[in-house]
């Protein structure tokens, strides 16, 4: 026995706050304060209510991307997945509310199909996720054009009220995003499969050594992500009155950006759902703010790039080693400029 008769029992906190969450949350608060001072119009109720539904859609897409990224993968079929859901729920009903439910079911069925295809290729065949999802994306766009012919149709009234409406002043899309966040968090943190999923992401080799079916979990991530993309697409169709057939295109890079800003490593590991959602809010508000300042689109994009660079640097740079490196007097010059 050790020094004491009974070793002190170990405790566990109910809530833990990751470095990523802390970073993006503080950034968001700072951004809101700066917005209120420099561009008050960007935090006016109208502007916020206009921004939130799109932030919610980005958050849901981001959650899907996060599940794949935490398994060391990446899903480039975001545009196809989102666009296909948009097209299905606008074209199938063609403004007829009665056909909305079958259309939504069809969107989820397609999502499962696309997810299984990606999952099979990455998990089973061991294909590189970039290629596999790139191919799937092209196929999904084939379906998008096959269904829509590239022509937009108006959203049904029911979907517009579900996706674009408000309850108690809260946009529905926000509620959906919160629902998705809670669902993802519970599934990952509180179910057997979810905890195993997280373990596989943290270390496939260790997961394998403990007898987990790591390839199945790695493949399953793509099904979850497509389901979330479809959800986002359906919402987007509700928010936008006449969505185009390429509505999902803008979400490819931003989904990766919010995941990275939320602190999830592109090399895989633990996923941070809350931080990802906050990062989506941050990026959307950043857009609003820069827009309200009246600066051109170009500056907005540059600010986004800077935010991403700083975000990635915070998580990836080994600051301690860097300090040591610069402390060393005779450190060789980094690179020669031409």
């Amino acid at each position, binding site marked *: 026995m050790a020094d004491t008769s*009974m*070793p002190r029992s*170990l405790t*566990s*906190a*109910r809530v833990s706050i990751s470095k990523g969450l802390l970073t993006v949350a503080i950034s968001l608060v700072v951004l809101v304060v700066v917005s209120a001072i420099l561009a008050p119009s960007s935090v006016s109720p109208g502007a916020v209510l206009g921004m939130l539904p799109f932030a919610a859609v980005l958050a849901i897409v981001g959650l899907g991307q996060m599940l794949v990224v935490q398994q*060391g993968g*990446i899903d*480039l079929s975001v545009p196809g997945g989102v666009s296909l859901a948009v097209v299905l729920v606008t074209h199938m009903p063609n403004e007829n509310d009665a056909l909305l439910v079958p259309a939504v079911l069809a969107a989820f069925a397609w999502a499962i199909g696309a997810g299984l295809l990606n999952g099979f*290729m990455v998990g089973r*065949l*061991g294909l*590189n996720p970039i*290629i*596999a999802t790139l*191919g*799937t994306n*092209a*196929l*999904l766009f*084939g379906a*998008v*054009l*096959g269904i829509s*012919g590239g022509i937009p149709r108006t959203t049904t009234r029911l979907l517009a009220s579900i996706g674009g409406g408000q309850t108690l002043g809260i946009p529905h899309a926000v509620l959906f995003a919160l629902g998705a966040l809670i669902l993802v968090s519970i599934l990952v943190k*509180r*179910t057997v499969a979810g*905890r195993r999923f997280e373990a596989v992401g*943290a*270390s496939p080799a*260790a997961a*394998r*050594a*403990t*007898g*987990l079916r*790591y*390839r199945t979990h790695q493949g399953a991530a793509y099904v979850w992500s497509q389901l979330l993309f479809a959800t986002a697409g359906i919402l987007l169709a509700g928010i936008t009155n006449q969505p185009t057939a390429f509505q999902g295109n803008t979400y490819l*890079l931003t989904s990766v950006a919010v995941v990275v800003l939320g602190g999830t*490593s*592109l*090399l895989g590991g*633990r996923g941070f759902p809350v931080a990802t959602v906050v990062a989506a809010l941050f990026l959307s508000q950043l857009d609003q703010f820069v827009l309200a300042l009246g600066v*051109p*689109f*170009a*500056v907005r*994009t*540059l*600010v*986004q*790039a800077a935010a*991403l*660079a700083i975000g990635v*640097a915070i998580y*990836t740079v*080994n600051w301690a080693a860097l300090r040591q490196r610069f402390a060393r007097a005779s450190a060789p010059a*980094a*690179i020669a400029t*031409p």
Partner: protein
Amino acid sequence: MNMPTTEAPAAVATLSMTGISKSFGGAAALTDVSLEVLPGEVHALLGENGAGKSTLMNVATGTIRPDRGIIAIGGEVVDVLDPREATRRGIAFVHQHPAVLPDMTVLENLLVALPASILPRGASRLDVAHELLATVGLKVHLSDRVETLSVAQKHLLEIAKALAVKPSLLVLDEPTAPLGQDSVDMLFALVRDFVAQGTSVVYITHRLAEVRELADRVTVLRDGRLRATAIVDEISDRELLSLIVGRQLDSTFPPKFDGPREGATSFAATGLTGPGFNEVSISAQRGEIIGVAGVVGNGQSDLLRALAGLASFDGAVEIEGRAVTGKELLARAAYLPADRLSEGLMMRLSVRENAAVSALRRFRSGLLISRKRELGMLGDTLGSLSVKAASLDAPVSSLSGGNQQKVMMARALLSEPVLILADEPTQGVDVGARAEIYGILREVSAAGIPVIVASSDAKELEGLCDTVIVMSRGHVVDTLRGAEITEERMIHSAVSSTTRTVNVDDVRNDGADERAAGRRASVRRFLQGDYAPPVLLAIVMLALGAFIFAQNDRYLGDFNISSMLLLTSALGFIAMGQTIALLTGGIDLSVGPLVGFLVVVGSFFILNESPTTSILLGFAAMLAASIVVGLVNGALIRYVKFTAIAATLTVYIALQGLSFLLRPTAEGFINSEVSRAITTKLGPVPIAFIVLVLVVIGLEVALRRTPWGWRLRAAGSDEESARRVGVEVNRTVVLGYVATSALTFLGAIMLMTQIGVGDPAQGVAYTLSSITAVVLGGTSLLGGRGTFVGTLFGSMLLIQVLNATVFLRLDQMWQYILQGVLILAAAILYAIARSKRRRRATARP
């Protein structure tokens, strides 16, 4: 004990190390060790695992810098020794893990590792290379990919590389471990021949028989201290053994099993054969702990992995009289790997998550995991093992080695296993925790769960186990019970073993068949080579072209041909750049926005009214901008350590912003004369396309025949090995990204003529289409292998497919579907071809 019994050296020592000390984080690895290697001698370095043999030789070759001590090479004291300096002074080290580049051919491996003076350009190069392989008896074709070689063949290749530089001192670290008898004989003959020419050899080994057969003198290390140096003929095996053993171990052990000798057998394995081990049989009764002894890497870990259900095996395993299959073992056996860092624990997760991962079902109430139940059971188990951690939420990486090991034990116990397999359970564990771990293992065993412990520390097995098997090269060379279990007996069995490695095919006897079936072999080599995908693509293109032509004969009209080739030129140049990024093992997402940005830059200089100087300045500005972007990408990836995706994604967004900053709307019409010059045609073929083809040929030759190409592929193939053969990986990769951007610049010139105006929104699509073209061409996203020719054909096929939909009157939907099918078909086909080639199963995904 014996002190050095050498006579005064007659000649100047090749290597002389005096008073070397080195400690890692407070633990002494070497303490005041001196070693002298004379010209023309084989000097054996003998000792247990962890005795400091490899550390000492890493000091000698400059890989590790000692804390204290003097190193002299050829009588000249060297103050600061780094690997390059050591190589320059003629020291060659053949490591246990060969530094070979799997994606490159045998010849290329020689070329990238050896100075040009040894393998001069010209006709004699192949002869010299053949000779190098013949010296070590390696019977492989020079254009075989190293990935397809066996472990032993890779080893021989490594030895061939070391011998090629004609070193004055050759260090061999356990060279016979992966070799079969024939190769061992050949190696010994080689070493004898070598020292006869006056070279010195340091031979690290565990085996007394090899010392006797080969060495002139022997130095024994134990616990990082010099035990003795002696002339082999003047020292007996018994004396050597007594120098090796006798390590002090302060741990206390729990009492051994003292139940009735004829109790029921609880664990029995009969005739187990699998990867790395052969005909292993063990049995133990309830309450007994089984030990697996031997020098590290002699099949112990492989045996444990197989028993954990992680590798397939033949033979029978019975637990409590019931036969169990590998599948059941995977689910029910608890395996504690030796490598806690990468395989044992999920270092990024908390103590709680690690301990719970194998027992999650037990915490379930309803659909969800009950937090209360989880914390309760975890608290009990971790408490009973007295795990010390800040909290259950502490990252497991923050714990000490001993506590990490206990977390693994807790995980094992919580999963209610039928068998516990512990590989090196006390490696990196402090003395106090050791005793606790021994106690836990004993308790578990007493509770009736069979426990198997593999350890390279014989003293530990002596204290802990009730029955021990000693393994050597995959065979059981001794089975000990009761009082026979002593450190001396185990080490004796291990070091006097003369068994040879199982499952090796180092000397392929198809040398004669090779010529007979020469044609078949070269077909196989072609299919495994880099050029199969381009040929496949060419066939697909011809077939598709013929099909379309049959439907519509305007397809091969001059106008269509030249417009297709012009489109191909823009994509082609960009895809060439992407190929380089992928060859380094990275990716460049920024090529699309970059090409757009460069056109925007050009649109300020290359206008209709611009003078010639302005036009030239414009091209210079575009080139300069592309080089800067390449440097930024490369620096972010190599020096700031962004992942390639994160780095180039950031640059992607930034470049888009810059384009819009310079040109908020499309403006600046490109000089039409410049456009006309660039799109000049020779018959139906644009000059630009001819230039592209020439660039492709140039790059292809550079990739295969020049040091630049070898280094690029080496860095992408295996970074660690590349560094060990002397490739400056950082520089190579950064310059690779610069080349990627510079080729994108050529693409931008083509795109400029196509859109004719500085439009900030153009170009982005080239990111994905360039990746598609490269992948179609067969370049691997894992880095290290690919061809520019394949990328050219991939670009052509992509353009052809897009064009085909017009001629076949298919709508836009088919453009996408055909693209998708092409990508997936190519990816799946190449992946299958590759997995067939690579037979060895890898644990890591």
